[in-house]
């Protein structure tokens, strides 16, 4: 029986190294086919008529003109008469036609009568939310009144961040087609194995008849876990059109309006400490919204477990496209509010926030020592000692520089995952798994684990994923993929190796337990003279391949959960224009044992880039009068370009104290802090808190105004 653990550091041949992604070449050369690139034979183009109103009832629908239009092959009503529309852009009717322009003409020819109902699409002011606001969470810990009585310095502030979208480069959508009564779905998804079950009910067919395929995805960030109404509509249109493939991928405006958002979050905070910085109490009244389902309740105060707390949260169910999981749901919101309040209190205490946090280290939970190490390391890399100054850069001229810090946490334990490792008698190795590569390097990670375990080069491992006919593996959410897929693959590889040892042992005149895999050979431990090449050993399988199933969860400490990270930012603010530029961001992050250092760092870079976007630019702007999203385009829904991002430095914590935790996910944690850390750096630069994100010139100038002139 194999011992299910990761190899010791000195035995790792691939694990933890910097390895370029295996699909890099096909991606940069354009050979990689995303599902939105597919052009299947005879493919029809689908379009969806969307509601112009944020809240309305459908009174009548007349599709006759569309149906009679030459080139239109099928019409399907998604939401019919009597349906209550709860956001602008809601799906009403889908049409499939020979080409896109015809489909577009067809949906424009459909006549829908609406009865308009009152709507709410803004959320910054709780007072105007009225009946749509519901208290969802009220909790206390310790005695917050006593805590504030003990406090010698108290800070009160209001902080807020708006609804933003996921802004996937590849929009949501699918190409669906029928082969007899089997449905083939090429879906842009984060959950290849989980789609069939979700589609079976609306399609009224057994899940076993639904095949889901995806080689590459252009972004999901939490918004692509299920088939959407338009995907189901596509499959129905395809059926009506005799099974012909139907392509429906959202237009950019629809993508920004209806394909998911991150809920807004606003909070009134009161926080108190003793003069020496010891935190004593926290009180927050927060609210947020994210469409008809309201908002979650972000975990306030974040990471730092202040002894006495009172928290209230109100969720506003308003009339905008519904929220979906967005990279570390609830954490960026909680982090921004908490870190801002901490920094503001530190300023009031006349303390360096770094010292202030370290003073309260005991409140940082089980990984407090890791946080302390990460804080010190980040401080060194950003030059905290040299560059940090008390609030307000006193150097002359309009450009003010400041530093800020933030820290965060996440779970990220491995999800359920089945892995089939197939070894052919000629020595070929294939990993089969119904997982997906979100662009993060899942293929590469699978190859690394199998290759390291079997002592083979990376190229020797064929990776087959992105198809629900392969063994089921969890959706890529909650940063659970790497923990799950690496553990199941490690178990499969170790078990397979045992089988090869069994077959090879007689030839080597040894017991299977005496063998090891090393450098492409199977040999008696420590004795290179008694060895078989991998191919010779596999030849002992005879004519038949072996397939070994590895599972997660399973035996051995291969994955666990709980990570931390610290970020520090260095910014420059033009106080005459309110424009914020990033000089540098340092991210120090732990995530247990790292499978591929290069792509792990790459995840952190990506999170920082996304973070600069929402810290400085992103905001879904909804118009209360018309109920519409005014910036459902890439001109005014602003994202950073390369020149806006500044210098990024990433440091992963590895080695003792980290590797023993096993493999833990990384996608989400580094995406938590950027808003907080940039906002804190701006406050340090200009001497006043800009209470809202994104840090646009209007907000920065307004904050400077409250400070009393520039």
């Amino acid at each position: 029986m194999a011992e299910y653990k990761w190899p010791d550091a000195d035995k790792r041949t691939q694990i933890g190294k910097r390895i370029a992604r295996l699909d890099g070449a096909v991606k940069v050369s354009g050979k990689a086919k995303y599902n939105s690139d597919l052009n299947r034979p005879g493919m029809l183009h689908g379009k969806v008529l969307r509601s112009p109103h944020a809240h309305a009832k459908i009174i009548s629908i007349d599709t006759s003109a569309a149906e009679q239009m030459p080139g239109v092959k099928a019409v399907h009503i998604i939401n019919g008469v009597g349906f209550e529309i709860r956001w602008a852009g809601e799906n009403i009717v889908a049409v499939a036609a020979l080409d896109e322009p015809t489909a577009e003409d067809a949906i424009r020819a459909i006549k829908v009568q609406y009865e308009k109902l009152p709507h709410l699409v803004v959320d910054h002011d709780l007072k105007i939310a009225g009946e749509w606001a519901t208290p969802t969470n009220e909790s206390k810990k310790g005695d917050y009144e006593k805590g504030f009585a003990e406090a010698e310095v108290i800070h009160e502030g209001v902080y807020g961040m708006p609804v933003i979208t996921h802004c996937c480069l590849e929009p949501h959508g699918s190409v669906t087609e029928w082969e007899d009564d089997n449905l083939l779905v090429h879906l842009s998804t984060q959950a290849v194995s989980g789609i069939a079950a979700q589609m079976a009910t609306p399609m009224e067919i057994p899940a076993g008849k639904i095949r889901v395929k995806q080689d590459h995805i252009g972004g999901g960030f939490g918004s692509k876990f299920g088939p959407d109404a338009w995907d189901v509509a596509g499959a129905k249109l395809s059926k009506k059109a005799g099974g012909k493939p139907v392509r429906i991928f959202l237009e950019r405006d629809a993508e920004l309006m209806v394909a998911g958002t991150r809920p807004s979050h606003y909070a009134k905070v009161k926080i108190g400490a003793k003069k020496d910085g010891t935190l004593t109490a926290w009180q927050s009244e927060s609210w947020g919204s994210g469409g008809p389902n309201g908002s979650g309740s972000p975990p306030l105060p974040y990471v730092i477990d202040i002894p006495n707390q009172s928290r209230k949260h109100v969720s506003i169910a308003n009339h905008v496209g519904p929220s979906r999981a967005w990279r570390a749901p609830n954490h960026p919101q909680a982090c921004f509010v908490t870190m801002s309040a901490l920094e503001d209190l530190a300023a009031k205490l006349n303390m360096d926030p770094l010292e202030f946090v370290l003073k309260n280290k005991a409140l940082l939970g089980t990984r407090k020592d890791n946080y302390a190490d990460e804080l010190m390391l980040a401080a060194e890399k950003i030059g905290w000692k040299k560059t940090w100054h008390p609030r307000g850069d006193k150097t002359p001229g309009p450009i003010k520089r400041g530093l800020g810090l933030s820290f965060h946490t996440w779970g990220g334990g491995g999800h359920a995952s089945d892995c089939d490792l197939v070894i052919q008698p000629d020595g070929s190795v294939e990993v089969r798994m119904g997982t997906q590569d979100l662009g993060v390097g899942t293929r590469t990670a699978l190859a690394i684990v199998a290759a390291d375990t079997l002592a083979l080069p990376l190229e020797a491992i064929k990776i087959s994923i992105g198809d629900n006919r392969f063994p089921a593996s969890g959706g890529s959410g909650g940063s659970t993929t790497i923990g799950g897929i690496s553990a199941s693959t490690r178990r499969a590889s170790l078990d397979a190796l045992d089988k090869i040892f069994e077959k090879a042992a007689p030839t080597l005149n040894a017991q299977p337990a005496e063998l090891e895999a090393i450098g492409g050979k199977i040999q008696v431990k420590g004795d290179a003279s008694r060895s078989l090449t991998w191919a010779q050993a596999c030849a002992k399988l005879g004519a038949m391949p072996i397939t070994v199933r590895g599972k997660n969860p399973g035996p051995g400490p291969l994955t666990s959960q709980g990570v931390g990270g610290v970020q520090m930012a260095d910014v420059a603010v033009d106080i005459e224009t309110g424009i914020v530029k990033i000089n540098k961001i340092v991210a120090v992050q732990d995530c247990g044992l790292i499978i591929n250092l290069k792509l792990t760092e790459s995840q952190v870079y990506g999170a920082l880039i996304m973070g600069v976007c929402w810290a400085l630019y992103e905001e879904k702007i909804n118009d209360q009068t018309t109920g519409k999203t005014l910036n459902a385009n890439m001109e005014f829904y602003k994202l950073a370009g390369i020149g806006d991002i500044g210098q990024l430095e990433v440091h992963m914590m590895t080695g003792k104290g980290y590797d023993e935790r096993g493999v833990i996910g990384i996608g989400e944690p580094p995406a938590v802090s950027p808003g907080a850390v940039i906002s804190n750096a701006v406050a340090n630069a200009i001497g006043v808190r800009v209470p809202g994100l994104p840090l646009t010139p209007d907000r920065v100038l307004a904050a400077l105004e409250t400070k009393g002139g520039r």
Partner: protein
Amino acid sequence: MNAFEYASPTTKEQAVKLLGNSWTEAEVLAGGTDLLSLMKDHIVEPKRLVNIKSIKELGGIAGTAKSGLRIGALVTIQELLDHPRMRKEYAALVQAAEGISSPQIRNMGTIGGDLCQRPRCWYYRAGFGLLGTQESGEPLVPNGDNRYHAILGNSGAALFVNPSSLAPALIAMNARVKIYGAKGQREVALEKFFTAPTTGSQREYDLQPNELVTEIIVPPLARAKSATYEVRQKEALDWPLTTASVVLTMTGNTVKAARIVLGHVAPTPWRSTEAEAAIVGKAVSEATAEAAGKAAVEKAKALSKNGYKIQLAKVAVKRAILLAAKGGTR
């Protein structure tokens, strides 16, 4: 996009015949970087497109240091930037063009198209008409999200901002625009070319549906100092929040004459005679430039959400003056 007829004349005489007598009949197609998006969004729905890119005489930059420049309407923004004389003699125009920070737009977009492009007001672009009104006729901008709207010249019905970054620079340079139409040739000062519409069926410039912009005439500027300062949030492709273009004629450090024009602050490019008066006769310094900036926004009036633009306009004017006095290089 609706079906349309496509014509590709090779002379301006043919082009004008193909244009209609009302705006709904035909549209001029140059680089298409604005027009095609408007058509895809059904904001503009011409029955015929008249492509002017095959009309040779509408291209090219010509002229001498003495005579000034003649810039054909089809000259692309990138061609402006690449022209050897531009950078030295027409810094304000080059800096304005550099603000259009997308190579794709610079390669396709033309100077004529930049001047005639339609407002970016998001109510207009969402189908609420040029002036942004509800079905009831109630205007949307005053009570809506007007963070990017006008702070000057905003007492009428038009509250959008003129989107052109090149126009303020050209107006500061006292450029003229040549127009060819069914009734022949005419020439207007670019400053007079832009108008604030009072109804949604008017255009934002002085053109008849059957007229074309053929060229822009820029007087010689070799001895003036010019600059454009753009306040733009992002380095990457982004619309200016405000721009200021200035042309200063100086004796030593003293300003003898000035033309100061702001962009993205009003329904038309906004010439500020107040700012000009504030700087003329003065030596350029932080203080005098600041005073000119203040003068530029004296009459500014904030809508509900765009008060910050008053500050931006003030700073843009100040910085453009300082930049120009330094010789136009940052």
